């Protein structure tokens, strides 16, 4: 914390400058796995944002009560509770989304963004700042996954917003089920979707391209490239802090070889 940021800055930093996916390289697993369709991406994004907002607020509220020795298990309990609550609510009200996100819904628990923000921000800052941070980071995550999903769904399936009725059904709208694009093109063009974009390789590929674009933009602004920063980007960043910095240990290990 070099300088005090305004509330607005806390919120907006997560959107672009410190975008959790494209700049901090956190939460890569759910980014890749749930960006197969735009609707899944929005569903996952909203779920993560809600959990992040709630857990940031609660952890910030409890930051003076939680003894620092057990803060990691305490954070995990708080995060896991909110994840389970969100999971139960989605099961009850948007069952189609629960089916689509599958195991990645409970896996929000180990999403690096959540524990990372709890440890790096909410555990040290005021409630309102933490809420702004959580909301900004959540929306930044959603935006990045949504970007990826748009590319993957458009090229891979030839549609946009397919399956939108599962989300909109919540508001009583079931008529809009997505936009078919490729199948509407004249048949003489003979354009088929590039299926591999929604399969696993397409996920890695699209992520790589997005990353390249993000790096290029960052470079233009004279900022550092995003890269995996050893321990910091892996899920147990917080546990490393607990152990007194295993990043240095790994570096030493690598150097020793």
């Amino acid at each position: 914390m070099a300088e005090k940021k305004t509330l607005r800055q806390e919120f907006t930093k997560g959107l672009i400058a410190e975008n959790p996916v494209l700049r901090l390289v956190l939460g890569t697993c759910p980014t890749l796995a749930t960006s197969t369709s735009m609707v899944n991406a929005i569903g996952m994004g909203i779920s993560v944002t809600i959990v992040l907002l709630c857990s940031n607020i609660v952890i910030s509220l409890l930051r003076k009560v939680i003894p620092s020795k057990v803060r990691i298990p305490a954070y995990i309990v708080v995060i896991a509770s909110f994840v389970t609550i969100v999971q139960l609510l989605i099961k009850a009200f948007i069952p189609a989304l629960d089916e689509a996100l599958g195991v990645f819904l409970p896996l929000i628990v180990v999403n690096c963004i959540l524990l990372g923000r709890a440890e790096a921000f909410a555990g040290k800052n005021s409630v309102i700042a933490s809420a702004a941070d959580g909301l900004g980071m959540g929306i930044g995550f959603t935006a990045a996954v949504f970007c990826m999903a748009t590319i993957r769904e458009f090229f891979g399936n030839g549609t946009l917003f397919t399956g939108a009725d599962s989300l909109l059904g919540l508001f009583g709208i079931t008529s809009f089920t997505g936009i078919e694009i490729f199948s509407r093109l004249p048949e003489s063009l003979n354009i088929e979707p590039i299926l591999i974009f929604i399969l696993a390789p397409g996920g890695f590929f699209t992520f790589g391209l997005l990353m390249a674009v993000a790096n290029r933009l960052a470079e233009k602004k004279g900022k550092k490239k995003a890269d995996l920063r050893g321990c910091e980007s892996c899920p147990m960043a917080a546990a490393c802090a607990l152990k007194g910095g295993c990043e240095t240990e790994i570096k030493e290990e690598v150097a020793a070889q």
Partner: protein
Amino acid sequence: MIKYYIAIVLTAILTENFVLAKFLGICPFLGVSKKLNTAVGMSMAVIFVMAMATAVTYPINKFLLIPNDLAYLQTIVFILVIAALVQLVEIALKRFIPSLYSALGIYLPLITTNCAVLGVVLLNVEKAAADASFGFAASMFNSVGAGLGFLLAMVMFSGVRSKLESADIPKFMQGLPITLVAASLVSVSFLGFGGVVENIFG
């Protein structure tokens, strides 16, 4: 019966590879795959923890949570159990098998909440709920298979990355972007395994 278990292991390694097909454990896959030694060390620790975690969570789920209608607590209970387990294993290794500790020790805290570990546990529970014949042994084989799949992906990818080091890469693709594109190509090769296991053991 042996055929059944071999099929489970091979499916977990090839067709349902955790990293390349299911997108679980991407962070260590990208972060610790630069050198073969660290890649193997990390994978060994993952296999070890996956097997331990399954051995502990399976009975908890079957005899504690499900009979008491507490299945909704799975996520929170499993993650705490895994976290505690890793700490215990670490202490035990340090005390009793220091040689193993020096080999795996530094990776252990990294994988406490690695999504692959919680993922394999949750997927086992899901499979067991859907198919009554998927019991303890099947869960264990599935976990070890998933870990071996992680090892395979890590070893292959560290080989690819060592080639990347000396390659002439356009500036805008350097670093993470080219790593991801390389991962994409490795993942394509695993698409080819679709149906192989069913054809052998079908």
